[in-house]
Structures are given as structure tokens and as C-alpha cells.
């Protein structure tokens, strides 16, 4: 949008939409500090430890980015789906199926080396996409609400993974798969695996696809008004299905990257747990902007690594970090809704006008 002379209230809208998530984060941190203080611990020292633990030095930063990597993938998965008006809550299931596909291809096919890596990632993308296609077809043909079907598929994926690491490729009967062969793993990059870079690049690519291609334009149009999109000739059903498949593929790729990039390089109990819902929260706070989603995912990664550090330094239960995350989301949701309310908007505009009239009087 060249020569973007934003009108007054558009500029106000833009600053508000950036301000809301930032204020929500600060407000949540303040309440978190109050809770920590009530427990008799020093919140400042706690937050200092949190920052030290997540951004203190090069190895900490790489660990934080490594912890944020899966969140970037599930965040982008939810963002892409929501952009097309599709509530894909199955990010976790698609993530897990991606990991399982990679494990099956590499361990089952016995493929080593870069070929194994490439096929593994490809398998993750394909199977992740297929796992999201199922709710997509149900939505298109039977009009089924995809929120519930995707969540049920999460549990089915979880138990299928259990079958993979207990029955198919278990490591001498232990409840975990054999480790991925070293040659098929993702290369190291500055203390963490190259998957992190892949995630960030993917964020930019998804932003580009959504905002700078005709396909992305159509996806956005279907998301905002499917009826008008159909009347104006867009293949709405095909686009919705594609939105499902692409968002599933992104999550599937995330699963593969997590398996091939991070210790312990195995599928085990708890692989991918919690990443799905976090991804949904990240998409919401980032207001469906892919690059903002990457930033928010890194923030969530910071909360995790920092929170773990904070707990070991000042001994507060990790549940505090979950509460802070929960509060961030609630404040972001309420804040975003509030700035859209006509009353609040009117209040802001005439406050601005009264300021102008004072200035000119």
C-alpha cells in the first residue's frame, strides 16, 4: 500500500492493535509479580532470573529459540487456518502425526543420511496435511463443526503415537523409539538446530503468501466473507480445504523438525504435548499476523525457559508461568474486543478531538 497516508482513526486503530498485546503482557507480568510476592518470594529477582535464564547468554538464547521453534510452527498453523475462517484446534494432533510419519519413514525405511532427513521432513508435511484434511472434508461435505473433530483427532493422534513408540519402533521394549540416526538429524546452527531458522523463515514466507499473493488474498477473502467470495467466483470449498491442508502441513513439519532437531531425537510420552493450544493462543495474540506470531511464539518460549529458571532460583511452582500465559491471553482477548466496541471508539475519538480543540483554542 504505497503512500500509506493513514487517516487519523486508522493510525489510532494501528497503534491500538499493537499496543493491546504489549499491555496485556505487561499487565500479566505485574499480576504474576504480585502472586510471587504473596508467596513471600522476591518477584524482581524472579523476573531477573527469568530473563537471565532465557536471554542471559548465547547458549540460553539458543535454548529459548529451540523451545520456541515448535510454538512458531503451531502458531503459524493456527494463524493460517484462522485467516481462512477455519478454527483448526488440531495443531497438536497434526504436529504429532508429522513426528510419527518422520519416525516411520526413517526408522521403518531404514533410510539414513540427508535422504532420510529430506524424506522425513516431507513425510511430516504430507501426513500433517492429511491429518488436517480429515476434518476439512467433514466440514465441507457434512458441515461438521471443525472445532470438535480436530480436538478428537488430537487424542487419536496421541494414542497412535503411543502405538508407534511402544509397539512399532520401541527401543528394547522401553516406551520410546530408537534415537534418530545422527546422519539424518538437522544440522546444528549456533547452539541450536537449523529448524529454528526454518521456522522464522517460514513465518516470513507465510506472511508473504497471505498478504502478497493472489492465493493469500483469496484465502483472506473467504475467511472474512465466504458468501461474497463465492458470488465473486472464488472456489470457496477448495480454498477452505487448502487452508486445512496447509495449516496441517505446517504443524506436521513442526513435528518433524522437533523430532529431528532436538534432544532426545526420539518419540516418547509427552512429545508435542501442549503445543497445540499454545499455538492457538499465539495466533490470537498476534492478531493473525504471521510475523507477529513468530515474535509472540518466542515470547512464549521465553516464558517457558525463563519460568523454569525462575522456579529453580526462587522456588515458585511452575503453575505461575501457566497463569501468566493464561492472563496474557485473557487480557489480549478482552483488550482486542474492547477497542472494537463503538462506545470505546467514540470515547477515544472525542477525547482526541477535545485535545485538538484545546490545542487550537
Amino acid at each position: 500500500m504505497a503512500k500509506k497516508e493513514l487517516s487519523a482513526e486508522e493510525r489510532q486503530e494501528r497503534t491500538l492493535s499493537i499496543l493491546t498485546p504489549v499491555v496485556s503482557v505487561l499487565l500479566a507480568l505485574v499480576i504474576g509479580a504480585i502472586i510471587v510476592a504473596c508467596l513471600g518470594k522476591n518477584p524482581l529477582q524472579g523476573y531477573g532470573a527469568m530473563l537471565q535464564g532465557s536471554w542471559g547468554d548465547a547458549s540460553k538464547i539458543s535454548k529459548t529459540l529451540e523451545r520456541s521453534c515448535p510454538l512458531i510452527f503451531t502458531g503459524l498453523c493456527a494463524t493460517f487456518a484462522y485467516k481462512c475462517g477455519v478454527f483448526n484446534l488440531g495443531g497438536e494432533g497434526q504436529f504429532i502425526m508429522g513426528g510419527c510419519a518422520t519416525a516411520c519413514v526413517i526408522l521403518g525405511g531404514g533410510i539414513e543420511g540427508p535422504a532420510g532427513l529430506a524424506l522425513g521432513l516431507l513425510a511430516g508435511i504430507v501426513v500433517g496435511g492429511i491429518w488436517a484434511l480429515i476434518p476439512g472434508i467433514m466440514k465441507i461435505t457434512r458441515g461438521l463443526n471443525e472445532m470438535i473433530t480436530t480436538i478428537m483427532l488430537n487424542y487419536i493422534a496421541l494414542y497412535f503415537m503411543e502405538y508407534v513408540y511402544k509397539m512399532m519402533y520401541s527401543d528394547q521394549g522401553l516406551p520410546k523409539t530408537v534415537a534418530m540416526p545422527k546422519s539424518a538429524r538437522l544440522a546444528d546452527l549456533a547452539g541450536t538446530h537449523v529448524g529454528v531458522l526454518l521456522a522464522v523463515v517460514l513465518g516470513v514466507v507465510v506472511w508473504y503468501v497471505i498478504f502478497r499473493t493472489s492465493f493469500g488474498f483469496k484465502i483472506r477473502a473467504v475467511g472474512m466473507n465466504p458468501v461474497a467470495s463465492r458470488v465473486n467466483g472464488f472456489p470457496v470449498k477448495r480454498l477452505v480445504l487448502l487452508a486445512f491442508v496447509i495449516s496441517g502441513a505446517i504443524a506436521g513439519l513442526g513435528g518433524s523438525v522437533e523430532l529431528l532437531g532436538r534432544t532426545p531425537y526420539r518419540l516418547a510420552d509427552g512429545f508435542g504435548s501442549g503445543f497445540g493450544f499454545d499455538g492457538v493462543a499465539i495466533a490470537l495474540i498476534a492478531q493473525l499476523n504471521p510475523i507477529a506470531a513468530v515474535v509472540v511464539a518466542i515470547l512464549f518460549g521465553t516464558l517457558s525457559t525463563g519460568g523454569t529458571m525462575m522456579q529453580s532460583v526462587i522456588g515458585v511452582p511452575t503453575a505461575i508461568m501457566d497463569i501468566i500465559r493464561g492472563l496474557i491471553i485473557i487480557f489480549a482477548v478482552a483488550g482486542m474486543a474492547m477497542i472494537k466496541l463503538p462506545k470505546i471508539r467514540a470515547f477515544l475519538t472525542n477525547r482526541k478531538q477535545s485535545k485538538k480543540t484545546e490545542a487550537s483554542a
Partner: protein
Amino acid sequence: MDVFLMSLPTILKTMVMGAVPILLASLGEVFSERAGLVNIGLEGVMAIGAFVGFAIGKMTGNLWLGLVVGMLAGIAVNLLYGFCTVTLCADQVVTGMAINILAPAIALFGYNLFVGSNPANATGDQMASLAIPGLANIPFVGNAFFNQTLMGYLAFVLVPLVWYFFKNFRFGLSFRSVGENPQAAETLGINVVRVKYLACVLCGALAAAGGAFLTLCYTPIYTDGIVMGRGFIALATVIFGRWSAVGVLGASLLFGFFDGLNVALQAQFQAAPVMFFKMIPYAFTIVALLFFGSKHAGPKANGKPYFREMR
């Protein structure tokens, strides 16, 4: 096949026990969706109900007080949902997701404090199950249906009450109208916002009661993640229960049956890949939605925010 017949009575017992939490949560959701509010956050409200019910029950020794306070806590959390969706007109799915992340975290945090202060708080006691004298010893079925806790019986008694409320009560009619066409309800002098908030209160109380049943009657302890996806299954139950109390009862029992079947199969066929048995309840939900789900779309204005002074 005889093994199956032999374990059928226990499957029925698990069916009835397993159905109660889902039934309570979905009855709450029926109220909520009838007033046009799709509450994804049932899972979180159930977790709060489970913890507060357990903690107060343990602290005061009076389990019924625990249940009541648990329901109040559920109402408080659901009013937060109500404030965001009704007053601020925020997106209902988004707010529901936020509740699902925040509420269990609060419950876990509270649990850490509660049990941290005194380790003996870890296990609470249970409501005794009351066998209805005559009926309990009907062979095969008696033990399952007529040897439940009082709270279990109350949950099932609630179903005809809710049915009666929507069918024959003036306020029941107003409730339905808010979900179908809020503008029409407004013009007839029905306070749409008040009805929606009342729906939040009822949904919060019932969902929390569903959660509290888990820690007061089903198992003697609270663990993080005790709800195990029952909140989402309750959402599915409301859809293929056709937004009616009786429909939801049937759907909850059906789901409870498949849960019981899953356990029975794991108990008898120990060497088999039991993971596929664990999938049964969730796979069943999808299949049921496939066959019953789509046609009846439910209340027309379900899930849409209501702006009072629309120009």
C-alpha cells in the same frame, strides 16, 4: 464372547459413572448455547470445579459444601467468560480457549499451595454410594443404575427438570428466544444481556459440578489434567444431543458406554495393542457427529455477539 457378557454389568456401571460428569457439563452447555453462547472453556471450568470441590471438601470435611463452593468458583470463572463475550462482544471461541488455558493453571497453582501446606491433603474422602433397596439387586443392571452416589442420582434427576424448564416455563421460552433471534426477544421486552449472563451462571455452575463429581465421587484425589478432554466431549454431546436435555442424556450415556468398553477391553485383552481401545471414545464421538451432527444446526444466533444499539 462370554467374557464380554460377564463384564457387561461393570461396563454399565462405568457407563453410568462416566456419563455423569459429561452430562452435567453438557446440560450447562445446553443453557449456554440456547442463549447463543458457545462455551469452549468447559474444560477449564470443570478443572476449577474439580479442584475447589476437592479442596473445600477436604478442608471442611463436608463434601456437599465442597460441591457448592466448587460450583461458585465455576460461576466466577464463567462470568469472566461472560463479561468478555457478552459485554465486550469478544469472539466466543477465542475467549473459550483463553479460559481453557487460564483456569486449569489456576487450579494447579491452588492445588500446589493447598497440598504444599499439608501433604495429608493429597487424598480426600468420597461420597458414599447409596444402593436403592429394591432396585439395586436386579441382576445384571441393578448395580449399575441403582447403586450410585446421591450426586449421581441428582444429575440424572436434573434432566427432566431441564426438559420441563424449556418446555413449560415462561422463562424457558424467553431463554430459547435469546439464542434464536435476540433482536426479536429485545422487542418483546426480554432483557437479552441478563438472560445471557444467567446462562453463563448456570453453565458455570453445572460444568463445575461435573468437574467436582470427578474428585468427590469418582476418585479420591485431584490431579492436573483430571478432566481428560471431557469438556470437549460435552461440546460434541450437545450437538448430537440436538440441544435438548433428553438428547444430551442419551449422548452422555452412549459416550460413557464406549468409555466402559475401552476399559473392559483393556482389562481382558492385556497383551493386545491397548492404544486402539483408548481411541474408541474419541473415534466414536467423530463417527456420531458424522451421522447425527450436521443437519440440525442448533440455535440460529448461536455464537454471534449481540450489539444492543445496532443502527
